């Protein structure tokens, strides 16, 4: 069934607009990327840069006034955006699952944890009886290191970390090929963050699925990821292996982002990037980053840079590296 040679997910030229009275807000504008089998991929960028919107579009969960304007989302060989309603429903969670951003409010407050996992299993008609589903839920809870009694509990009886673990257990219920975790630890305190992240990675390795991790906390995510995509103002500006991105970032935005990362080894003067991300109702012409870029050239104000491989396995959308401009 699963064709291992194919990538799990291939997103091409995705565009998501939020329609306001004054025109479209270009939340995601021409994003393309590929997620390989078993890979852990991270999206980073400031809040509001379109990371979450991109993931919601992959799940086809964009709500009006938002709309997916263009693009292809090829999940396991099929275009999610072209699926019939029922096909889409059955694909969700069985092939692609979500560990939500706000685990605090992502569980139905008036249903027991076990019932919230059970309804997902039963609705996908995997041929399980209720008893089998319940037994499976207990083993899932065990896998995320939650005691059995949690199954009979309501969300308000759980701590933040326990809720997040319950969400991870839920996400793995149907052994999906791809798990999207949207800042899964942002609401937790530091000690719990680490433990929950380890659980998530452990579960992903056991299932052999791919993982997309969204986060603005670069320090924590960097340790566990294979590759990273950097987003800025609705565009993917750089993609590459973790070591490359950290050691030799190409895009000036990535450089600034890495620079602003508090480092224990050396006391660098980070302090963030001057200026604010653009308002996406009316993005700047050319490269969206040029108003804040130290290296901005004339071409940056006119031409939109294309995401291209400038080093092996390292892609960037920046005029600095185009051959017609300054070579490295």
């Amino acid at each position: 069934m699963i064709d291992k040679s194919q990538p799990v997910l291939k997103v091409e030229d995705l565009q998501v607009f939020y329609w306001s009275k004054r025109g479209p807000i270009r939340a995601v504008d021409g994003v393309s990327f590929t997620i390989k089998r078993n890979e852990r991929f991270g999206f980073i960028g400031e809040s509001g840069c379109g990371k979450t919107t991109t993931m919601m579009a992959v799940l086809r969960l964009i709500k009006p006034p938002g709309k997916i304007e263009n693009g292809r989302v090829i999940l396991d060989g099929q275009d999610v955006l072209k699926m019939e309603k029922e096909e889409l429903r059955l694909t969700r969670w069985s092939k692609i699952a979500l560990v939500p951003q706000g685990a605090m409010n992502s569980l139905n407050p008036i249903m027991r944890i076990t019932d919230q996992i059970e309804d997902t299993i039963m609705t996908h008609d995997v041929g399980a009886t209720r008893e089998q589903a319940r037994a499976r839920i207990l083993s899932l809870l065990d896998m995320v290191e939650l005691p059995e009694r949690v199954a009979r509990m309501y969300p308000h009886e759980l701590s933040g970390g326990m809720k997040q673990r319950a969400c991870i257990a839920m996400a793995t219920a149907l052994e999906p090929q791809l798990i999207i975790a949207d800042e899964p630890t942002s609401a937790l305190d530091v000690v719990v963050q680490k433990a929950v992240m380890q659980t998530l990675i452990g579960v992903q390795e056991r299932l052999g699925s791919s993982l997309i991790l969204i986060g603005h906390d670069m320090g924590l995510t960097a340790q566990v990821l294979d590759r990273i995509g950097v987003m800025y103002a609705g565009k993917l500006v750089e993609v590459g292996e973790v070591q490359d991105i950290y050691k030799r970032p190409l895009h000036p935005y990535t450089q600034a982002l890495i620079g602003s990362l508090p480092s224990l080894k050396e006391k660098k003067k980070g302090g963030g990037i001057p200026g604010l991300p653009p308002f996406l109702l009316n993005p700047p012409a050319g490269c969206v980053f040029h108003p804040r870029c130290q290296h901005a050239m004339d071409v940056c104000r006119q031409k939109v840079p294309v995401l291209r491989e400038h080093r092996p396995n390292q892609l960037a959308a920046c005029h600095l590296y185009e051959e017609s401009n300054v070579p490295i």
Partner: protein
Amino acid sequence: MNLQYLLKRVGLFLLTIWVASTLNFLIPRLSPGDPVGAILGAMQAQGATIANSAEIIEAFRARFGLDEPVYVQYVKYLWSLAHLDLGYSIAHFPSTVTDIISNSIPYTLGLLSVTTVLTFVIGIFAGALLVWQATPRAAKTLITIFLMLAPVPYYLLAMILVFFFSFTLGIFPNSGITSPGRIPGEGFDINYFLDIVYHSILPALSIMIAGIGGWVLGMRGMMVTVLGEDYLTLAEAKGLKNRRIFLRYALRNAMLPQFTALAITLGYVVSGSVIVELLFSFPGMGYQLFRAISSNDFPVIQGITFFLVLSIATAILGIDLIYPLLDPRITYNRK
């Protein structure tokens, strides 16, 4: 369910009953003239009942205990209330108030319980469907019409319904509970029962049509909030069927506050149906109340109002006790 919640609810119930009965005790005594005088005056106005007036006055003197200090009167009054002893009717002496109430209870209780439950259920569903994306346009239009009827009071709606269905079209009877001259047969007479139902349709419709809009409105507001919650997005991401998302995730959560609102609006519903009964000469407690008012039958007026307050408080207590079973988070504090 925790004990604190239980005690609080029962406490509020008892407090309500106490305040209502104390008001009932105080109002006659604060009004100009003495209560027996008022009753005597009322009897003189009636003329017909004056035959056994001496007997009646004696009965009332004993009941009010007017020669005793006020606090003794008060304690005696509460004591007799606790035994559901509400005294005698003036207009129908020696019938007791309890007799009159118990004759009219089945009608009021039947009409009110059926209409309240139906109104609530229909209103809740309609309100939820109004903001649910997948609802057909035609259904939304129909629900909006009901929403527009929300501010129209029960009694006006009753008049309009009688005008159309009874006076103009002649489909439904305009008053009474059975067709004239109809007597129940042996045991359970299905035709007699159906006749009662037939006579109850217009009163029931007035109460329901006037009530549904209010629930639609409240539910609409709550549903908008719930639809924006993260757990609804996750429910969709989980690939659940639309029906299940609607029922278990959206509707059930949005419904909870309506349940407490039901407790609060119950008094309003009862007041409205009292007048509907009167307009339809439906022989429940509202109609009896009207007759008691026309014949200055103070004990019956007070008895019926007290009994209605008691029923409402009991129903609210029931709702409060059921509520924690529906919402695992709530342990106390009705909001």
